[in-house]
């Protein structure tokens, strides 16, 4: 059962009541199916109303939900014959980034993604999905390998951001992120980018130069975390909820700003409530997008990719 977020408590209370009634009815042999179905209907209405009116901050909490499916889960659900590839051939292997080759919907593809852990122990290994330079350099190596063998690339973004640490700086993460953006800009093969959870700043953008940018319904994408925005611009990190509205980071906002191309629906209540259904919805969208992109000449893709980013935030004047 997924951990309960504060704003989900009314749903939880109804569900508790339903299960109480069920066990009572079973124990005493009394038929309460009418009462139960009324409560179930009510629970569904409450869920729909809560999830239909999420604040930006509530969306942030869902995007960061510890039980939200991660890159590993989607690989399990959506890919066959997946073989993970390790290392950047320069320094090491970054556990915060996974990459490899597998089969998706009939196509051999290269898959690259940030990998967050599901608990503290996993997160210590995965560094909470915050990459070091060798993570971006591994990704670039796999992208170029994909280009050589004419494989499409699928990138899953799920990171709070690049790792603010001494080693990451020493090994030049500014250069690694810039090169990753450049590599994607020039890559002569289809690239699909999906934000599956948190898309935090440059660390996210390093895998973000796609021919299509998809966002899962409750994923977020931003230049800085709401906490960071509040603490730097307002000197008050407790105003993160407010900042979440100001910086426009929900999938809907990113779509309206012309950055995301499509929103991938999630099961009601978020992907963490039903990872398999979430994977199916994502798989459908990826399949359609991929079928469309493989029809386009690689040289043409590079030109179109340039044009796509050239007009983002274009100035109204002249």
């Amino acid at each position, binding site marked *: 059962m997924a951990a309960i977020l504060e704003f989900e408590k009314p749903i939880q209370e109804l569900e508790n009541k339903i299960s109480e009634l069920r066990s009572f009815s079973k124990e005493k042999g009394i038929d309460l199916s009418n009462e139960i179905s009324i409560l179930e209907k009510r629970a569904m209405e409450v869920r729909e109303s809560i999830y239909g009116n999420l604040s930006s901050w509530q969306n942030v909490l869902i995007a960061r939900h510890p039980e939200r499916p991660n890159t590993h889960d989607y690989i399990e659900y959506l890919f066959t014959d997946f073989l993970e590839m390790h290392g950047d051939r320069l320094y090491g292997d970054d556990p915060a980034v996974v990459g490899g080759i597998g089969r998706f919907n009939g196509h051999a593809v290269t898959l690259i993604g940030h990998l967050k852990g599901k608990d503290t122990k996993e997160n210590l290994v995965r560094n909470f999905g915050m990459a070091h330079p060798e993570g971006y350099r591994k990704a670039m190596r796999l992208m170029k390998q994909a280009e050589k063998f004419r494989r499409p690339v699928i990138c899953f973004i799920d990171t709070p951001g690049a790792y603010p640490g001494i080693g990451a700086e020493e090994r030049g993460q500014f*250069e690694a992120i810039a090169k990753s953006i450049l590599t994607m*800009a020039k890559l002569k093969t289809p690239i699909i980018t999906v934000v599956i959870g948190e898309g935090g700043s440059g660390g996210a953008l390093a895998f973000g130069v796609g021919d299509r940018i998809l966002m899962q319904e409750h994923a977020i994408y931003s230049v800085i975390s709401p906490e960071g925005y509040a603490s730097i611009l307002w000197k008050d990190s407790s105003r993160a909820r407010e900042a979440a509205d100001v910086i426009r980071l929900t999938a809907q906002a990113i779509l309206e700003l012309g950055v995301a191309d499509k929103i991938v629906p999630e099961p009601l209540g978020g992907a963490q409530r039903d990872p398999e259904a979430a994977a199916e919805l994502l798989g459908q969208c990826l399949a359609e997008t991929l079928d469309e992109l493989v029809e386009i000449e690689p040289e043409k893709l590079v030109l179109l990719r340039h044009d796509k980013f050239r007009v983002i935030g274009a100035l109204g004047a002249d």
Partner: protein
Amino acid sequence: MVLDVFRKQKSIAVQPELESREIPEGIWSKCGSCSEILLNKDLDKNLKVCLKCGFHFRLTAHERIKFTLDSKSFREMDADVLPVNPFKLTDYENKLTVARSKSSLNEAVVTGEGTIEGFPVVIAVMDAHFMMGSMGTVVGEKITRAVEAAVSGEKPLIIFAASGGARMQEGILSLMQLVKTVEAVARLGDAGQLYISVLTDPTTGGVSASFAALGDIIIAEPDALIGFAGQRVIEQTIRQKLPEGFQSAEFFKQRGFIDSIVPRSELKGTLARLLELHLQGVK
């Protein structure tokens, strides 16, 4: 992507009200490194490098242009492009107004064409005095247009980076300027043209992680702060003090990310020599 560069700023123009009456406004400046009081006219003559300790003061875009290009050769492009406030934030509007009136610039970058010892170039000069040189849509657009002008005019490109990173008030649109500028630089590279990136204090966040890192030649000014993550954020994350000289130009040169650290007094000459070495054909 954090504008965590204020604490590093060592050059402080003397505030008249804080100093004794013997130091009239606009005549003297105090070195941010050795605290020497310097006559502005001497300081200007020395390209705003401390005469005592060699500390490089931050330059305005127009000072940089004056110290780099041949006199009267500069032709500004897109001078009249005004800032945008895509989310209509009141705080941001106010900050822009203040920045514009204090700096007499419309945005945090000045772009144009000119010559360096007779060699034509397209240049983009960022100005850290304008909202810490942060890159939003207008800065990204002006830099992109400058790169495109270099491509179409078949001229070498020089960009002087000076920025705390992406401009937070424009959200995801600022982040996308990293891609837009890198895409432009990619085309310049495909066209076989020279791009010299000069990293000045500070070059951090999204600017360090985009076009500034991609010069064919990367030069830095002495002691410039360079890097992706802000120092305060790093300290909070790892809970330890950062070593002396961390993220300086020298730090990154030693680790292989910078071709050369060039003092300001030699910068124009160095650029001219590089431009000459890249002329096509035998000379």
